[in-house]
């Protein structure tokens, strides 16, 4: 307020100022174009009071807003760029950005301030300095900008990195020579893992280098997974870009259908793939053997975008809709209709754009919108442009079944006040009539009735449409033609008159008496007609002359003479031309003979089609599509490739350790897929099996389900990451032997490449990878090399497994005799399934204690002493240990084995967001739970990504269903920010897949959580011999036996693959078996100890039969399902 009196007076003095419109000096602006007035502004800017400066700046900004030139204040303003007051500063920035281009020299004065700002500890200041610096369009500072962007791209704050991404297109538009350097920055930022940056950098990518699709490969899966958390504007850009990407990288999901359809060229697909197969055994063979298998990455994109259809932002919904339209298999496109219909409730501008797109879609996929037909009904209050678009959609949707309702609707529309709309409706009726033969006569009758409408526009439009309809079947409708001939007296609209005349001329043989009369009337009024009518009169005259020269010869002469002196040269030309053509003279040649043929040739009926036809070659939702012309900067939507490019380019090399640099307050964010996209564990399982690669590549659920992923290696890496230590020396020493091994395995591995994507992908999110520019093949190799620790795990476990099985099988062979004796000696123990479990219990405890001691011996102190944290060490040493303990063979026979293929698929218990920074994951470690053998051990990992310590983490108030028991884990006293801790708790699910619900309490909060086990986790492996197995199986027949036939996919033809898949699905152990094509597995339920026996028998070819024997029928049935799914392709 202090300032206002001062200038208020002055203003009164000068009296020249423009009317004051803002009375509040803080919010408005008083200004004047008077030059002198700027002096006081300058003074105010030079003063040392912030309030005065602010006032001055506000007035200046108000001037800019009014479009007044304030450039002469530049020097005074620029001085204030270093002002401490942040509001003044911001307004100075606004001013600078506006005028810097005009006053380049002076603008340079401010640069040093920004350079200082770039180093400011406050991220907001760093960011805004970069924003302004990059907005100053002065070519001389390009190098400075480049440097600033590069620096900001590796800033700690994601916000600053985001700003850097925004700055890239600005610099590019200023100096496109910087492209190469900018691409480097883009590449770097593309690998950023924060959602904040993702949208902005893709935007920059689209502006600078949309053709460099190769930069996306490495980031594709990450972008898909992050998508849901990206801010909405970024989502739009990313989805549009990914649509284009997917078009270049994947095969058309509809190619089978298009094969069947009209597209004959595509029939060559098959042969092409035949050839392709030789070159690319990986990708092409996949395509060839099955007609079409969707690339898992393709599926990933479709699934991760689907929830966004629920977005509140219309642009996002539209983006997803177009993605589905362009990329999804036909059967799945339907989901977008609902969301698009919803958008019709929105603002009229949104409706306009959406309807344009719906119109295009409804031509190709009519069925999609049919259920929503009524949503396109027109209200009298709709703006005309919306009405016409809705009409278009209704017409496109019309088919034999709904045409009657649509026509009834149309009848209402015809009575509307809006004449443009009525005309459009009549045309729509015409289109319906041409498309649907059944209603053609009805429509025609309706239209004829309209001919007696009082409104001339309606009549005229009807005439035009009727003309088109009649052309299709003129012979049946001479009555209508007669009726229309009569109309010439009344109707004045030129287009309609012209149409009638044409009709009469064309079908003059149907109205032989009336035609000359019409011509007579027209000849009379010829001079007063519009040009278009005159031309048709000449036409009519010519045609009549040819068919009925006796009556019309003179009339024709007369008309042609009139036309000869017409003002319009077109008409004069036409008259001259026709005269030469039809009136025989000595000079006229052969043409004369053919005049009749020329004029009365059969003319093809016009095809009334939508103006939206073929618009879909533009990417839907784009500006170009809306305008139906290519807009500047439009990126063509590429056609599907004939054969898929190598999918392995999207594989990302993984690192075993976490990047130390993490996002502020969002630790661990990148490890998990946003909560939305996950489904419950059971659902996931099912889906997994249907589309095996897809969920693997999702990476969220942990790597275990794919055949050769190794639980050991994962848990190793987890423990490493948890402790933050570098990789253990043990694995390092192993790598040599692994290298040797990898040679022979490489062949096999290539076959299983697909399967391996799972683990590899699992690391995608965890690895802080810097995508290198190496060639793709090299990357493949590199990926392999980098994956070594994992392979070691594999090698380890593979050997351990082999070792185990060898020793076991040998022992089982050796003691088959003794066992027989034993079985005789202990008959009851075999009959009932309980003895093994009672036997196993002490074993298990012994093993458990052993483990712990082993852990202490090994250098794993950094990791929390959980049995699950180092199973590889345990399992290998356990076997030797057991041998060392010289256990008798008999005892081994029913030992509960430590599982070789444990499922370390982690499930989310509490999402970071729900837990206010505390995120909790759990997995079934498949270790026996030491305190109580009837419980399933659940390995829970807490990580605290909040800023505060979490204290007193414990379980409380379990609300359990009857029978379910729960052994709580010891309270975690405190968990520092950024820390993780793991515990094991035991849950007795009482052999059901009911969820165990309980609360997780911290010192301040409590969260409701629930753990639901897959059926395979309710089992504990049991070792038994084949004989024993058969014996037990013999007891469990009838109701307890469930058989299922299945077909084994190509991926699991090998013994190993089958065994692994089964063992991943359920916690069972394999029973050594003499027969070649029979696999047997045994386990018992954890709670009641009932035996569960699985037999898988391979028949000829890929067919197989699965038998599960179990007393617990429910478990048996569910297990069958799970195993079948595990073995599905």
């Amino acid at each position, binding site marked *: *307020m202090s300032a206002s009196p001062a200038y208020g007076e002055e203003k009164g003095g000068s009296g020249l100022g423009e009317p004051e419109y803002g009375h509040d*000096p803080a*919010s*408005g602006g008083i200004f004047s174009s008077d030059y002198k007035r700027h002096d006081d502004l300058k003074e105010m800017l030079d003063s040392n*009071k912030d*309030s005065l400066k602010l006032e001055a700046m*506000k007035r200046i*900004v*108000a001037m800019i*807003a*009014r*479009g007044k030139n304030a450039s002469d204040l530049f020097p005074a303003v620029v001085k204030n760029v270093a002002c401490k*007051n942040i*509001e003044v500063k*911001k*307004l100075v920035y*606004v001013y600078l950005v506006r005028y810097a281009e005009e006053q380049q020299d002076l603008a340079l004065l401010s640069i040093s301030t920004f350079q200082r700002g770039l180093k400011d500890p406050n991220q*907001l200041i760093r960011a805004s300095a970069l924003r302004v610096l990059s907005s100053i369009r002065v070519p001389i500072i390009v190098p400075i900008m480049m440097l600033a962007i590069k620096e900001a791209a590796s800033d700690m704050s994601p916000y600053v990195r985001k700003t850097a991404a*925004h*700055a890239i*297109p600005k610099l590019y538009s200023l100096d496109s020579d910087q492209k190469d350097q900018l691409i480097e920055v883009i590449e770097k930022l593309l690998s950023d893992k924060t959602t*904040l940056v993702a949208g*902005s950098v893709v*935007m920059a990518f689209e502006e600078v280098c949309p053709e460099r699709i190769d930069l996306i490969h490495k980031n594709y899966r990450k972008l898909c997974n992050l998508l849901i958390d990206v801010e909405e504007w970024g989502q739009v850009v990313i989805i549009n870009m990914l649509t284009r990407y997917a078009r270049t990288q994947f095969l058309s999901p509809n190619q089978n259908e298009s094969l069947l359809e009209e597209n004959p060229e595509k029939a060559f697909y098959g042969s092409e793939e035949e050839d392709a197969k030789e070159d690319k055994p990986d990708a092409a063979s996949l395509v060839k053997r099955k007609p079409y298998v969707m690339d898992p990455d393709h599926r990933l994109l479709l699934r991760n975008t689907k929830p966004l259809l*629920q*977005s*509140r932002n219309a*642009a996002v*919904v*539209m*983006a997803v809709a177009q993605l589905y339209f362009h990329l999804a298999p036909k059967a799945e496109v339907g989901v977008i209709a*609902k969301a698009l219909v*919803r958008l019709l*409730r929105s*603002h*009229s*501008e949104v409706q306009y*754009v959406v309807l344009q797109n719906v119109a295009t879609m409804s031509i190709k996929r009519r069925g999609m919108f049919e259920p929503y037909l*009524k*949503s396109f009904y027109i*209200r*009298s*209050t709709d703006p005309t*442009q919306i009405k016409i678009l809705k009409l278009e959609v209704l017409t496109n949707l019309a088919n034999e079944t709904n045409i009657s309702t649509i026509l009834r609707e149309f009848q*209402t529309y015809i009575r509307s*006040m809006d004449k443009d709309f009525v005309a459009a409706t009549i045309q729509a009726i015409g289109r319906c009539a041409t498309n649907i033969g059944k209603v053609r006569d009805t429509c025609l009758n309706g239209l004829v009735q309209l001919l007696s409408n*009082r*409104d001339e526009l309606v009549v005229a439009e009807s005439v035009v449409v009727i003309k088109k309809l009649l052309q299709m079947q003129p012979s049946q409708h001479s009555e209508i033609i007669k009726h229309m001939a009569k109309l010439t007296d009344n109707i004045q609209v030129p287009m309609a008159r012209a149409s009638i005349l044409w009709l009469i001329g064309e079908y003059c043989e149907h109205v032989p008496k009336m035609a000359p009369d019409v011509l007579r009337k027209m000849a009379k009024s010829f001079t007063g007609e519009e040009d278009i009518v005159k031309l048709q009169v000449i036409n009519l005259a010519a045609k009549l002359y040819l068919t009925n020269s006796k009556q019309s010869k003179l009339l024709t002469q007369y008309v042609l003479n009139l036309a000869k002196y017409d003002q319009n040269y077109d008409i004069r030309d036409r008259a001259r031309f026709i005269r030469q053509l039809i009136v025989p003279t000595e000079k006229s040649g052969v043409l004369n003979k053919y005049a009749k043929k020329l004029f009365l040739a059969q003319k093809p009926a016009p095809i009334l089609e939508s103006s939206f036809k073929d618009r879909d070659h533009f990417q839907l*939702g*784009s*500006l170009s599509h*809306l305008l139906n012309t290519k*807009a*500047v900067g*439009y990126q063509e939507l590429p056609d599907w490739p004939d054969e898929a490019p190598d999918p392995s380019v999207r594989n990302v090399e993984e690192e075993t350790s976490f990047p130390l640099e993490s996002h502020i307050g969002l630790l661990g*964010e990148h490890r998990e897929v946003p*909560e939305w*996209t996950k*489904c419950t564990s059971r659902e996931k399982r099912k889906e997994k099996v249907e589309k095996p690669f897809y969920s693997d590549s999702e990476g969220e659920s942990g790597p275990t389900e794919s055949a050769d992923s190794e639980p050991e290696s994962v848990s190793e890496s987890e423990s490493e990451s948890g402790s933050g230590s570098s990789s253990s020396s043990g694995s390092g020493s192993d790598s040599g032997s692994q290298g040797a091994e990898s040679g022979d395995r490489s062949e096999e591995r290539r076959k299983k490449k697909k399967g391996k994507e799972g683990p590899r992908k699992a690391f995608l999110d965890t690895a802080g990878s810097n995508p290198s520019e190496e060639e793709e093949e090299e990357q493949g190799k590199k990926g392999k090399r980098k994956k070594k620790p994992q392979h070691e795990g594999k090698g380890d476990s593979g050997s351990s497994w082999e070792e185990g099985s060898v020793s076991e099988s040998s022992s089982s062979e050796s003691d088959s005799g003794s066992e027989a004796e034993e079985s005789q000696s202990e008959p009851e123990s075999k009959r009932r399934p309980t003895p093994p479990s009672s036997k196993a219990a002490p074993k298990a405890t012994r093993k458990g204690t052993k483990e712990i001691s082993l852990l202490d011996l090994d250098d794993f102190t950094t990791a929390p002493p959980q049995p699950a944290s180092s199973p590889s060490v345990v399992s290998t040493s356990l076997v030797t240990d057991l041998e060392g303990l010289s256990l008798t063979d008999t005892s081994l026979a029913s030992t509960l084995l430590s599982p070789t293929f444990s499922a370390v698929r982690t499930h989310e218990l509490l999402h970071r967001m729900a837990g206010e920074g505390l995120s909790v994951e759990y997995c079934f470690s498949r270790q026996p739970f030491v305190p109580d053998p009837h419980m399933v051990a659940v390995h829970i990992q807490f990580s605290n990504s909040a800023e505060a310590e979490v204290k007193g983490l414990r379980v409380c108030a379990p609300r359990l269903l009857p029978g379910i028991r729960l052994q709580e884990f010891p309270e975690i006293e405190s968990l520092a920010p950024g820390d993780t801790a793991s515990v094991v708790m035991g849950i007795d699910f009482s052999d059901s897949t009911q969820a165990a619900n309980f609360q997780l309490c911290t010192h301040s*909060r409590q969260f409701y959580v629930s753990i639901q086990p897959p059926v395979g986790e309710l089992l504990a492996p049991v070792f038994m011999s084949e004989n024993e197995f058969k014996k037990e199986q013999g007891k469990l027949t009838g109701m307890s036996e469930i058989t299922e036939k299945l077909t084994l996919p190509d991926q699991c033809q090998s013994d190993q693959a089958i065994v692994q898949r089964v063992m991943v699905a359920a916690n069972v152990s394999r029973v050594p078996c003499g027969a070649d094509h029979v696999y047997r597995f045994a386990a018992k339920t954890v709670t009641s100890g009932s035996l569960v026996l699985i037999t898988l028998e391979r028949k000829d070819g890929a067919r197989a039969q699965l038998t599960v024997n179990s007393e617990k029928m429910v478990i048996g049935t569910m297990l069958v399902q799970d195993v079948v799914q595990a073995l599905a392709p």
Partner: protein
Amino acid sequence: MIHSLFLINCSGEMFLECDYFFEAQEKATDVENVPPVISTPHHYLISIYRDKIFFVSVIQTEVPPLFVIEFLHRVADTFQDYFGECSETAIKDNVVIVYELLEEMLDNGFPLATESNILKELIKPPTILRSVVNSITGSSNMGETLPTGQLSNIPWRRAVVKYTNNEAYFDVIEEIDAIIDKSGSTVFAEIQGVNHGKPSCAIGQINNPRLLDDVSFHPCIRFKRWESERVLSFIPPDGNFRLISYRVSSQNLVAIPVYVKHIISFKENSSSGRFDVTIGPKQNMGKTVEGVIVTVHMPKAVLNMNLTSTQGSYTFDPVLKVITWDVGKITPQKLPNLKGTVNLQAGAPKPEENPSLNIQFKIQQLAISGLKVNRLDMYGEKYKPFKGVKYITKAGKFQVRT
């Protein structure tokens, strides 16, 4: 992306001129008929019309039109939020804040911060008190630090929110869209619902999720829980927000709470006509229908109306030919009726079309679809917050054809 932005009022004056746009504006008879996307030789103009102001953005290259339209609406929403109204005067009075806002919302044409919470932390909305305080203390309207929401994954909520009273109110507002034809049968009806809410972490449960044909969510809703358990679990933003919008499809029978009896006819050659409209309640589950307003766009030939109403008052705008009848509450005992004669232009032919009636109404304490918020649990609060749910059924685009 968005190259520049212009605000233009109805008569076509404001910030800067934009010839092509005006040309199109002149061509269109009605403001609503200005095409949202106009192509010019060098630029593309994308405009929206809100509260008598055209927001026109100029773009130079390909960009999804909805992207721009949605953003412009967001800008208009923000103005509304800041200034209470999005009018020409409000914008003129706050030009500086408008500039500051746009500066934050756009960076080089790409939307930057559009979440109102973030913006409000960066730039405080103008209040009389604040402007007084600012001019005395010299403090500014600008936030000095980066808004925390900008960095988090939940940008709609500020990091530390403290309220003296913690309340959660939910408004379930349902709108009935319907077209009723001449004979009184429903051509098309559907219900659009909106759930508005106010703060705290909460889980809401609604009685019959299957009712909802299609939903769209505020980003705060956890989609996964909705998918699996049909429970709305969310960390709500501060202040008012639209939690979910949903659509109850026309497949489920929609109960239409009112009926209309109407006779609108024009006599041939006598330049007069009859107008008789009665409105009555039906199927409203014992609740009264309130705030009933009937609007009729009469044909152009109508000169004047001479009517009497048994209830409420009516006005006729002879320029726009719109008759508005404010009925108020409907009491079933005495049905409101509006009756009288219509005077037509002498000599004009009898109007062909029959006008359609647009009806607005409101029913308190009723969600016509039968939707209910069964439970509302809040977590993470030590004290018991106040919770409340309110139901309103309104007419949306409710049209009766005659």
